[in-house]
């Protein structure tokens, strides 16, 4: 009886901790925890009251995310109406805790962008061989966790960060997808004509024109972050991003994309404290179907400021050979 009772308590304890960890993105870690917490320590934050927009996987929930935006957590002020630009469109400006998403294919996070429910949520995507093991996987156990084409399946099976390193471990630019997935938060600056993303991750940035009269040069070279163009659909900002150099991965886990991928991102500021963010991966070379993550961004409190981040300054694991230095591939596709 004692053994049985202990087993029950253990299971309940594990479940309780699991729930706690899942909730952590919305809760600021308490200041201190060490001897003599600094006087300038950010004040603890209360759990958020939740927002109108539903959250689905891909971020702070089951979608592999935790500690979003450096655990930026809930804002101190109660939510107010959505701020507006002079042109009447929602103003996304602010310092945001975007959910840390190290695995965009985490269980429950892969949605079908073509199946939107009446309540604004999306139905889960289904695909052939879903969840089956990849027999030839290198670098750990892998499954058909996304609707891979044969090209995509091979890229995923061959990814081996231990043997071959990873460009992010070498402090090269993470790229559009991994910048938005990163855990340290993002400052957005917006006016009538453009939106700037200031990623704390490695102090990188990208700029998105939203004025329909703006045209990028047609012969821009491919880049890590790609080239973005924004447009409005009502109050939702839609950003399409293309023009990649083919070196990047979708996430820390290493899910692949081709250089021809198109990301369709949407941003809807549902109140002063909340953004509903979706990202759809359109990459027929790598995936047989378009798929989507849905995430909720929370406004950080004013004391949580954008900070400098230099990946190169003390990357000791790379310097002493513990991390394998990633090499540029001879060809990209």
């Amino acid at each position, binding site marked *: 009886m004692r053994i049985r009772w202990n087993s029950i308590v253990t299971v309940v304890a594990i479940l309780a901790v699991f729930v706690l960890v899942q909730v952590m993105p919305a809760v600021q870690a308490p200041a201190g925890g060490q001897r003599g917490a600094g006087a300038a*320590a950010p004040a603890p934050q209360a759990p958020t009251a939740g927002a109108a927009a539903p959250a689905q996987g891909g971020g702070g929930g089951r979608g592999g995310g935790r500690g979003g935006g450096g655990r930026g957590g809930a804002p101190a002020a109660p939510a107010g109406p959505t701020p507006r630009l002079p042109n009447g469109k929602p103003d996304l400006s602010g310092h945001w805790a975007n959910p840390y998403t190290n695995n965009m294919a985490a269980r429950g996070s892969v949605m079908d962008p073509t199946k939107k429910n009446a309540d604004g949520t999306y139905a889960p995507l289904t695909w052939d061989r879903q969840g089956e093991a990849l027999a030839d996987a290198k670098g750990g156990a892998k499954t058909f966790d996304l609707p891979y084409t044969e090209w995509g399946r091979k890229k995923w099976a061959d990814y081996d960060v231990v043997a071959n390193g990873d460009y992010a471990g070498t402090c090269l630019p993470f790229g559009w997808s991994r910048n938005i997935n990163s855990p340290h938060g993002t400052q957005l600056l917006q006016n009538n004509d453009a939106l700037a993303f200031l990623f704390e991750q490695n102090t990188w940035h990208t700029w998105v024109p939203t004025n329909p009269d703006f045209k990028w040069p047609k012969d821009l070279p491919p880049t890590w972050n790609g080239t973005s163009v924004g447009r409005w659909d009502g109050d939702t900002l839609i950003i399409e991003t293309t023009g990649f150099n083919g070196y990047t991965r979708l996430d820390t886990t290493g899910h692949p994309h081709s250089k021809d991928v198109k990301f369709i991102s949407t941003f809807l500021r549902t109140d002063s404290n909340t953004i509903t963010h979706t990202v759809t991966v359109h990459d027929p070379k790598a995936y047989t179907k378009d798929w989507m993550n849905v995430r909720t961004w929370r406004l950080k409190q004013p004391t949580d400021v954008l900070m400098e*981040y230099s990946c190169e300054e003390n990357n000791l694991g790379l310097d002493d050979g513990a991390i394998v230095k990633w090499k540029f591939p001879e060809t990209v596709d």
Partner: protein
Amino acid sequence: MKKNHGIAVLVGAGLLLASLNAVAHHSVAAEFDTNKKVTFTGTVKKIDWMNPHIYTHVEVKGADGKVIVYRVEGGPPNALYRQGIRPEQLPIGTVVTCTNCSRSKSETSMNVNGRMTLADGKAALGAPGGPGN
């Protein structure tokens, strides 16, 4: 009976948190061999409060008198700052212990990853590793 329940809770929570740390950041697997463990107690000689991870240099004197300096990898400084953690909270000379910490895959590297604790058992400078990207 109550004591057994407490142990069960702690063991369960510890295992779960350890597993979450392992999957949170790719470089844990890329940089450390989780089958190669080391336990030591030593004094803090220096703290690199730098990106992408902080390192605490811990000087350990072996039974043969030989001195080894391990570098214990911590979280990114920005994330630690937001948790109210400051390098001054771990003064030079403080005695710390690293229990079952993972050694670097490199034979020559003295980098380790794991939970570093103070004499009272509390974590020193926050959780190990943590999300760096």
